[in-house]
């Protein structure tokens, strides 16, 4: 397996899971549809659904498969969060800049995510609907300083005008790759340990070496 950290054009493909969190009506779905389909409020959306979308990217020569998981934003489903975000590499927390409440919800999510997943998850706080700036109820300074205080990045987007979305996802991918690479390096140092702990199963390890030499099935 090629370690992603060193090789410039390693053939490793990264697979990342990103969850979309936020109250209903903040535009989570519009955001992700704009990103993956480049469509907004379009009657001719080709996908059957907008709750699970994938995007293939190529970042500095490395392939990235992004799986974006939409979550139900209604308050009554809040308790189900942990089932959605476990094992995810990144979280995009969306709020509506015209809705103070939705920003409060984001704060709750951040607190919960940090508590459950620690620092291994990359957080993005996204203020959506900047096309409605005249009705803004969440100040830019407040949002950005809050994001910084919890180690998250803050973005301003508009799904309607297609502003800031590409940057958001690209940035997030880069950060997730860095995290993954750091993890790999860590694993590389302690490779012998982790390997031995995983060796609980009986796999006859000496036989594969004999196989290529013998080539028992090579001709088919």
């Amino acid at each position, binding site marked *: *397996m*090629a370690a992603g950290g060193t090789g410039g054009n390693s*053939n*490793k*493909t990264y*697979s*990342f*899971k990103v969850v*979309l969190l936020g109250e*209903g009506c903040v535009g*989570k*779905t519009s955001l992700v*549809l704009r990103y993956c389909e480049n469509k907004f409020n379009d*009657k001719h*959306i080709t*996908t*059957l*659904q*907008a*709750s*699970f979308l*994938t995007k293939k990217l190529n970042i500095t020569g490395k392939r990235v*498969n992004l*799986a974006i*998981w*939409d*979550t*139900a*934003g*209604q308050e*009554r*489903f809040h*308790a*189900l969060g942990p*089932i*959605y975000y476990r*094992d995810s590499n990144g979280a995009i927390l969306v709020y509506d800049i015209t809705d103070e409440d939705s920003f409060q919800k984001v704060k709750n999510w951040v607190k919960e995510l940090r508590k459950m997943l620690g620092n291994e998850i990359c957080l993005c706080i996204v203020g959506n609907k900047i096309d409605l700036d005249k009705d803004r109820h969440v100040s830019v300074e407040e949002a950005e300083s809050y994001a910084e205080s919890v180690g998250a990045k803050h973005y301003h987007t508009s799904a309607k005008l297609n502003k800031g979305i590409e940057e958001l996802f690209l940035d997030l991918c880069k950060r997730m790759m860095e995290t993954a690479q750091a993890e790999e390096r860590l694993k590389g140092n302690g490779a012998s340990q982790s390997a031995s702990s*995983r060796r*609980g*199963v*009986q*796999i*006859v390890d000496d*036989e*594969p070496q004999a*196989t*290529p030499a013998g*080539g*028992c*099935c*090579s001709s*088919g």
Partner: protein
Amino acid sequence: MMSQRSERRGIHLDQSELLCKKGCGYYGNTAWQGLCSKCWREENQRERQKQIQEDWALAERLQREEEEAYASRHQRAQSQPTITPFSKFEERKTKEKSSKVNTVTKFFTPSAKTPPKKDTTSFDTQSSPSPSSSSSRHPPADTDHATREFIDFLKPLKSGREIFKQCRAFTESMVYKRDMGADELSECVQDFYQNLSDRLQTQFKGSTEHVESVMDEVEKYMMTRLYKEVFCPETTDDEKKDLAIQKRIRALHWVTIEMLCVPVDEEIPEVSDSVVKAITDVIEMDSKRVPKDKLACITRCSKHIFNAIKISKKEAASADDFLPTLIYIVLKANPPRLQSNIQYITRFCNPSRLMTGEDGYYFTNLCCAVAFIEKLDGQSLNLSPEEFELYMSGQASPHWPQGAGASSPGSAALSQVHKRLDLLTGLGERQDRVIEKARQLESDLIDWTDEVEQKVQSVLESFPQETHNPTATTASGTTSAAASAIDSDNVENERLPPPLQPQVFAG
């Protein structure tokens, strides 16, 4: 020798009495009812066989009876509350029949390990069934088939034989580990997947698709063979959880589409069709053995849900729409062995698919739906705790007040029933009133006769009898004379021509 000795002891036994009663020529034994060992075994065997068959027939009959009772109970429990959201109730019922049977049989097989049968007929036609043999209902042909397919798949691969050897060795070793806890078993399998895929990764020089296709086949082969051992194992409380969720869903039969805010309009035929298909698919999950196939059922169910939402809302479904609809579908379907299936998939599915793939997303949503149903309270349905309690205890149903207003065919029938009921109670009241009046009339009559009698009595008392009696007789005498005189006065009668006789004219 023997007869001589017995004679000496004063007991006479004829040679023929010692022989087998069947007359086969061998000696018999009183302990075997005078038969020889061979004949006794035959006889006994036949008897026992007969007993077994009788027992089995009885067991079968009891089961059928219970099944029927359950089905009717189930039907009653379901039919009443589901009328409103279920527009094509009857049709669905028949469609679901086969799947319902699965749920039912589940209750009567002691070990939940058995994969459900396709239908009842296969159950009846089984030649040598016995309750304990239920776990071996799946013919070994199934696993043989999987093995053959696996070998065929691996043939063109360079290290195919090697992969097969390892998988087989591992699968066989797993059989001896069945006493281990489910989590440990899962760990073993997951470690095996991990190691194998790592090795394949080096072998195929990192071609992920290739590795995944091989891993799919490995999973299929291994899990087909291990299914019986590791699905809902006795070491876990999966079965208990299955029953708990099943009971819970049944108790929640009254939950409506409006309470869950499901954005699906079942009046559109296409939509209700998709809903039916979604229900069928999620129920079908239980009949599959390989985790990947089970996931495929969930995915198909989800696609039908998306379809229903898209037709209803005319836009692509978001998670805000999807999850409530999935919850609704699960409530309506009450899929058999839901928790066991979820646990089985979590434990033994290829982790890469579960964590990032589309199938994984839908599976996660199913887990969410189950978690939501388990924790559901009044607040999450926008009901007050009192209302929730009333509905849960069955003392009230949210469908009654809506009956007249709603317009779906089911509620139309319901309102008709209500109208008829009202009419009937009205009729009853009127009948009661009539009976009451009749009674009053009766007592009035009795009173009146009493009154008349009293009056007559008083009149009789006030007048002496002798003076009255002659007058009464003379009065009656004059009237009768007058009556007889009517004809006699009519003297001119004789001069009248005879009355016309009807005559027949020749026509």
